[in-house]
């Protein structure tokens, strides 16, 4: 019997999930605090910027965690597991819709790009760079842009992306570097770093 309060903020995701399976509400709150924002951003990107649908998907994925926490294997990394589940949910939604809307690159206006640089001139360059960057991502193939976003926006490693998308590490690398080269060519004329 514990005499002091557990430090949930310092616990790993896997330890928190074990506590959730035992009915620990505070552990679930911590898990929700860590992953609700990133998952919402992921669903917004993947579901054609549909905020309402993305909110529902966030609720559904955490409801799945509450109802069946035993589905999570503690020997695995929770982060890759939850993104795998999210990815599968999106695939199922695509099948339902049978239409992939490619109107935008998923960077919603609510998905604000923040820049702390206060210099006026660099701010202008940054705004232009962001515009070109979004445009280039939008033009990129979905499978390549998905890998690129998972790497640079959701901050998953190559191994984790491979696990989420159920593809090999080599495939992830090739898609990632292909996307990087494409962006390098697209943004070659506009180089904010060199011109600052």
């Amino acid at each position, binding site marked *: 019997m514990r005499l002091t309060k557990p430090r949930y903020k310092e616990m790993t995701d896997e330890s928190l999930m074990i506590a959730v399976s035992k009915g620990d*509400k505070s552990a679930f709150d911590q898990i929700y605090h860590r992953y609700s924002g990133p998952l919402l951003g992921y669903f917004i990107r993947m579901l054609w910027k549909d905020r309402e649908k993305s909110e529902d998907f966030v609720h559904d994925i955490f409801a799945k965690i509450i109802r069946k926490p035993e589905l999570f294997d503690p020997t695995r990394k929770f982060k890759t597991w939850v993104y795998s589940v999210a990815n599968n949910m999106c695939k199922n939604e695509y099948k339902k819709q049978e239409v992939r809307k490619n109107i935008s690159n998923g960077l919603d206006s609510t998905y604000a790009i923040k820049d702390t640089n206060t210099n006026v001139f660099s701010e202008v360059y940054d705004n232009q760079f962001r515009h070109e960057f979004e445009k280039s991502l939008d033009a990129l193939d979905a499978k390549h842009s998905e890998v690129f976003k998972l790497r640079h926006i959701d*901050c998953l490693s190559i191994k984790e992306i491979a696990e989420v998308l159920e593809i090999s590490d080599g495939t992830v690398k090739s898609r990632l570097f292909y996307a990087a080269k494409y*962006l390098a060519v697209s943004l*070659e004329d506009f180089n904010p770093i060199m011109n600052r």
Partner: protein
Amino acid sequence: MEKDLVDIVMEKEYIELSADEKAELEDFCSSESEFYQLKQVFEDVGSIQFDLPSPRKETKQRLDDLFNDIHPKAAPIWYMSVFSFVVPREKPLYKQPLMQIAAVGLLLLLIFPFFNNEMTPDNTQIANIEKVEKIEQEIEEASVVPPGVDEVKVDEVKIVEEVIESIREESKTEAGTREITTMDFAFTDAAASAEPAIARTAAPGADHPDGIFDPALYGEIAFSQPASSNPDMLDLLTATF
């Protein structure tokens, strides 16, 4: 996030790459210029800070209700309810009632001796008072003249003392000069007659300053005893307050 090939490209210069790393990058960048091109893209994207959206509060509320339905709180055992009151998990340690009670108890324990230090006679003082009374009683008993003692001799000593005192007083006036002379002879006679009595009271060969009286003459009880032979008396005489 564990480090991968992208991190290597972002952190290292081309000349710093190991042979294994170069081999791994060979499929993606065959030359140094391509390497720096990729490095530039990764750095530019890395400098962009994406502000993550937050779900609505209603979403969290619905999940909380679902959690309470799936994992209802167990009925507390009676001692757990007491324990949960004195050691609430949601409060920090210094705000828990049990800790506060323990702190107050410790404080009282530390300050209690200061308030308990009163000027009342304790058992040690009572024992000392009783000892003094006993010694006084012994002195009184010792001062009583034992049977068989020649009271005349004692009276003669008293007479001598009175004579001495009167001589002192009369010596202060001139008129008493002649009487002093006369009295001197009387004193001398009285002192001479008193000397044997005094001498008889001291044991032959006695050299103790208090005077040792021969117990054989006066029984087992002596008129006085030296302080060193009476520990209680010695304590009384040497007591310091």
